């Protein structure tokens, strides 16, 4: 417990060291940038969507392409995070048992994809899983149809596999601190009470880390739903997911901008809802 002056949470009249003027001046540049290059663009999207009194939403909701995009995004936004959380959890579980040094090295390797451009991943996956990719040809030697195997990466599920390349590191980063702090003596206690290793983990570990798992799922789901770079590089605009539907609307000259704005808002709403859910769970865990 610290008893140092000023660290107390309730110190209301305990004056902050930097005066109000300094703090406002220091936050000003960020506020200006934020207003002009974040709020203004988003507000103009809202204005564009409301331009014809909401008729754009009607057009969008009546468009089968939009609904195919929603379905594709929901599939992608569920499968990719689910797969990533499963793999990421197992990997984090493994890392948590390593020594501090080995963990640091493994963590560095695992977090590399976070800084990779989505394009790097896309082309790498074409080389591994594409129509004449390494794995495709390898499986062809074992008798698999290269057209089927090579086509997989261009489906929403295949896309999910590519996405998990940079989603898994995010899961590991969320889960690792939780798992390192988990007191493994609990598992030993459960085993001594008669549980086998699997049930001990299922009954003791999983419920305790469930909030973190859900947070990881939501965060990766938001990324999977909102991103388009990797998908564009892999499949052009041929797969029906919401961001690609939106992208083709934006990039086609003379297209329906109010409808694109409406899709933007729906897409952003979806992402915000998922991130908000994660934040609520995080806040409840902290309380």
């Amino acid at each position: 417990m610290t008893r140092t002056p000023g660290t107390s949470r309730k110190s209301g009249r305990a004056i902050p060291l930097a005066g109000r003027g300094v703090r406002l001046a220091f936050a000003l540049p960020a506020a200006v940038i934020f207003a002009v290059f974040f709020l203004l663009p988003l507000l103009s999207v809202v204005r564009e969507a409301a331009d014809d009194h909401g008729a754009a939403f009607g057009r969008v909701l009546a468009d089968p392409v939009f609904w195919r995009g929603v379905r594709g995004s929901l599939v992608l936004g569920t499968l990719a995070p689910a797969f990533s959380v499963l793999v990421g959890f197992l990997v984090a579980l493994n890392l948590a048992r390593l020594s501090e040094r080995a963990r640091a090295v493994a963590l560095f390797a695992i977090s590399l994809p976070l800084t990779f451009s989505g394009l790097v991943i896309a082309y790498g996956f074409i080389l591994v899983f594409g129509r004449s990719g390494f794995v495709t040809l390898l499986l062809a030697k074992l008798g698999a149809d290269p057209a089927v195997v090579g086509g997989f990466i261009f489906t929403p599920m295949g896309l999910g596999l590519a996405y998990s390349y940079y989603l898994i590191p995010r899961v590991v980063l969320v889960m690792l601190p939780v798992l390192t702090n988990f007191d493994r003596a609990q598992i030993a206690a459960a085993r001594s009470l008669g549980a086998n290793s699997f049930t001990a983990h299922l009954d003791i570990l999983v419920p305790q880390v469930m909030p973190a798992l859900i947070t990881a799922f939501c965060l990766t789901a938001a990324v999977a739903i909102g991103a388009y770079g990797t998908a564009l590089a892999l499949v052009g605009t041929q797969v029906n997911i919401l961001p690609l539907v939106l992208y083709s609307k934006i990039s086609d000259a003379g297209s329906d901008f109010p409808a694109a704005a409406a899709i933007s808002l729906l897409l952003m709403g979806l992402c915000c809802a998922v991130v908000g859910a994660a934040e609520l769970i995080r806040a409840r865990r902290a309380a």
Partner: protein
Amino acid sequence: MSVRFENVSFRYPGSTAGVFDIDLEIATGELLAVIGPSGSGKSTLLKLLAGFAVPDAGRILVDGRDVTDLEPHERALGVVFQSYALFPHMSLWRNVAYPLKVRGTPKAERRQRALDALARVGLAEFAERAPTSLSGGQQQRVALARALVFSPRALLLDEPLSALDAALRHGMRDEILRVQRGAGIATLHVTHDQEEALSMGDRVAVMHAGRLIQVAAPRELYDRPASRTVAAFVGHANLWDGEVRAPGRVVTRLGELACDTAGFEPGGRTCVLVRPEQVVPLAELPGAARPNVFYGRISEDRFLGAVRRCDLEVGSGLVRIETNIRTAIAAVSIPPEAIRLLPPDPTALHTGSLS
């Protein structure tokens, strides 16, 4: 070099916690220790003096000058924090020289003064080391040197020993006292360790619920506490509610006690204080009934090395004993001069818990 709080009140917004009507003076060269349970406001007192909080009412004077509205950096007070808060990116001498640097002292001079200050706390040879390479006690000494190097007008110590282990703590008490005496400045020492307060303070202030309830020299505080709260907080105590039967006679749970009742009217309530080490244990019952002798059954018996601490059940009452005799104890004698009557506990009036 004196410090004065004049009617200072401060309440944390949105709570009832704070400090109220604080009137306190610390003379030049005096070390005033402030003790109290956590949340009693002792740290707030230090915050107010250091300038990290502004009083709602009253004023604070240092050397007769009103500093209430001064910024912390304008007050020239040396503060030693509980965590020492050494700057991790500066070597020890740069840490100690920092207050001189911000005052514009030339580099050669401030280096020399910093080295001198480090020498005074016995760390001259570590001058170029980084703070993180030091033990807790060494960091503490650097923090002390840093707080004193610019000849501050007062020294503020915020639980300076609480992060040290017990063995180091005793040595550091003497060290702090030596350095404080050398500097000869008014010192406010906030601590939750009553032994530390009694051994270091010229005077000790006891805080409770944001108020000063007694300020006195250590011996006075221990022997003549002003209230039951002070008696209970400072040292160990037997405290029995009682009623003055007649001059020189008080009735408690244990039975009748003979003692000096000066200042208490017969029929009035009181609280009886007896320190456990002043209770005289008896190995066997005296032949004839004597005043202030009670027999009973030992219910707890703890051997702590130099001291043996036991509880004697007497009827429905309990007598705490501290002794060094090791034989069986059958009775106790309470010398009349060891008994001190305190104002009655206000809560006892309502509950009527007197036997």
